[in-house]
């Protein structure tokens, strides 16, 4: 149920949402005392979770929230998550294509 790889969690979460947009819900739970943050996505059949205690992961939380805001307000959600590996590949591709030829 707990997924430790962030990209895997996001892709899986998106799959679950797009398959059942009416049933899927996303929850985040924060415990200040324990420094714990848990993200949970479920459609009442499949449940996945991601947990962390790292301040660095706030960025992940906000990105995931943005993704969920976008999906819950669109009539026909399509996969939109771009993993960090894909972003790096895209950045490398665009920088190599824009470099001046000698």
């Amino acid at each position, binding site marked *: 149920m707990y997924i430790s790889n962030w990209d895997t969690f996001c892709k899986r979460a998106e799959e679950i949402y797009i398959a059942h947009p009416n049933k899927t819900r*996303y929850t985040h*739970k*924060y415990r200040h005392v324990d420094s714990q*943050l848990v993200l949970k996505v479920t459609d009442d059949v499949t449940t996945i979770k991601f947990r962390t205690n790292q*301040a660095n992961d*706030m960025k992940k939380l906000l990105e995931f929230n*943005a993704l969920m805001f976008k999906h*819950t*307000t*669109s009539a026909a959600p399509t996969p939109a998550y771009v993993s960090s590996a894909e972003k790096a590949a895209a950045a490398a591709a665009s920088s190599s294509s824009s470099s001046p030829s000698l």
Partner: protein
Amino acid sequence: HLPIVYSISATMVLLENDAFLTDLNKLFLRKKEKGSVWVTFKSYSEEDKRGKKRRVEEGADKSVAAPSCLLRATDGDKIKISTIVKSKDLPRFQQAYSNILLVNMDSLKKKAKKKKAKKAKA
């Protein structure tokens, strides 16, 4: 001296976006010493309220309205608040929401890189 939360009632209170954000902030402040804060996102479309599709009159607009985002927040006990965010309000709401999280979720651990480097040298 705990901040006053507008809605401690053990029933769900539906609020306007701004009131929800204010109460969410207060909920986080309230739960600093003890407890958890849950926030749930769900897709909400008004037309499915009764679970049946209403009879569409001839000539009526058949396009499905874009759903809204239903947000709920709770402390797992008595405080339950919710709000509905429409896509037109989304950018402003998302900005404010992110700020509330950044300000309040500050007990997460920072990486202690410098300490490790010192230990390695010694």
